[in-house]
């Protein structure tokens, strides 16, 4: 009798389990798993919307790796990612160090508001404001530069400045995110050790490099990984500020992918571009897993 009840219970639990996970699994299969699989297959084909797919093997990948244009775009994306990640994390760290002190609540509220508000407003919105700030003749930035006696800077219209301008906006928008995470990490640095070090006359720089930095390095590492994954997918800020131009000087892989897919309807090739992006993200994720294991062991 008792065993009967137990197996009934197990069966009921099993049924409940499947029923509860069913909606999310079905949706996940339809909108993530199947599309990823189809994208990978698509990347080995020449796909025409009316005639269907022709298997072409690695042709799309060969095209990506041999065309100067796609290589320039690939390089642009990496360059953007490198600059955006470095400045976002470095500025975030400096702000976190500066803010990690006792202050009245209203001030803390203000700082969180000022540095975090850009993080949660879509780049699609704020980039429109920045595109005005950057405008050559009527732009706010050039107006103030002129007051300082500096000539007009073609922020977005010159291939020399355009990438820098996008990085500046990106840092304004995202650095607050890293600041908040790093403040949390800094608050975990044990105070007795810091106090003991300053008692012994260790300079601020020494305390930072010998105590703070090793202590927060796992979090810093996480920030770099997270920033890289986001930066490699950069899309809306570039789309709205320059649309990828002038020429291809600011075109990123995401924009290239959308151009190829919905502009030229080269769906097979676009799929190959997206698989390459996925591989980039995967590599960074693997580096993260290996790296975080090492941090934990030490």
């Amino acid at each position: 009798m008792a065993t009967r009840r137990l197996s009934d219970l197990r069966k009921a639990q099993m049924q409940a389990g499947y029923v509860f996970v069913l909606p999310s699994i079905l949706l996940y299969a339809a909108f993530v798993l199947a599309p990823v699989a189809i994208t990978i297959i698509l990347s080995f084909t020449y796909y025409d919307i009316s005639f269907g797919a022709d298997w072409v093997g690695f042709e799309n990948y060969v095209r990506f790796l041999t065309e100067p244009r796609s290589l320039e775009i690939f390089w642009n994306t990496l360059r953007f990612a490198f600059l955006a990640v470095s400045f976002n994390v470095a500025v975030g760290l400096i702000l976190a160090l500066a803010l990690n002190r006792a202050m009245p609540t209203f001030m803390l509220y203000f700082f969180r508001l000022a540095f975090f508000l850009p993080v949660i407003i879509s780049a699609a919105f704020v980039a429109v404001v920045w595109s005005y700030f950057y405008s050559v003749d009527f732009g706010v930035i050039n107006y103030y530069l002129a007051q300082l006696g500096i000539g007009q800077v073609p922020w977005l219209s010159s291939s020399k400045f355009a990438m820098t301008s996008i990085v500046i906006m990106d840092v304004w928008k995202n650095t607050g995110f890293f600041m908040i995470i790093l403040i949390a990490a800094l608050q975990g640095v044990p105070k007795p050790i810091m106090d003991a070090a300053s008692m012994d006359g260790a300079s601020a720089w020494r305390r930072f490099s010998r105590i703070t930095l090793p202590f927060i390095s796992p979090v810093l590492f996480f920030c770099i990984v997270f920033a890289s994954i986001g930066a490699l997918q950069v899309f809306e800020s570039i789309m709205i500020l320059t649309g990828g131009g002038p020429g291809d000087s600011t075109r990123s892989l995401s924009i290239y992918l959308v151009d190829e897919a919905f502009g030229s309807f080269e769906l097979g090739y676009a799929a190959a571009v997206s698989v390459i992006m996925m591989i980039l993200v995967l590599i960074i994720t693997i580096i993260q897993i290996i790296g975080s294991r090492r941090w934990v062991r030490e």
Partner: protein
Amino acid sequence: MQTRSMQTREAKKWVDRAIIAVLLLMGILMLMPFFWLFSMSFRPAAEAYKMPPSFFPPSFDLSNYQTVLESSVPFLKIYWNSLYVAVLVTIGQLVTCTLAAFAYARLRFPGRDSLFFVMLIGLMFPAQVTILPIYLGYAKLGLLNNPIGLVLMGLTSSFGVFMLRQFLRSQPKELEEAALMDGAGYFKIFWRISLPQLMPALGALAIITFTGAWNAYFQPRALITSQDSMTLPIAMDLLRGYMSQGNLSVVMAAMSMAILPVVLLFLVAQKMVIEGVTFSGIRA
């Protein structure tokens, strides 16, 4: 000795003050784009390009807002689409992720851990790698240019399942075991015990999901081209058409309305928003 340490303490105080002053200045600079856009939205269009730029509204002239609402761009329809998509996606994720999280955290059934692992893998795929098949599928089903398409693809998320499962596992289990002994069914346990335990996490998930859906740009841009089905972020391009006519103030009036829900959410629930958003970063 005594005086020297007092001197250094005095010096340290001044350094502290200087740092706070610099931070305050930077904080104000960070907010400038927002001051500017709100102020611009209240300026007469003719004065939009007047220099020096003003960061505070000269008056509260609402005519730009009126122009947006009366323009040829169906702004109210677009606003409604944004609300509709964001609200339905949020509700959908709360339901599907809560159910799944309960099963993964509290129930035992064959294949549970493999299913959860497969779900976790979803955290690694960028949106770029799913968009083409979704586009092709939607084209077949007639869901292109339809906000419902945006809702459907957002109804669940690996992140939501993961976050809620972790949270539920940190909660005590005793109540559930007692309820089970009393012969309560699993749905009753879920509804009466686990759901109330999950409330704080659900608030955070709701905030992240809502702002995420409100801000989404990449997928709507690929799937929607008709004005009547657009959401706000992609409609901004459309509204920028006004800029070429010099009606910058009108664009900024539209922008103010577009960012308002997220700004308000942040002003009233600052701590929760920050915790939610930073937690959603810490997911791997």
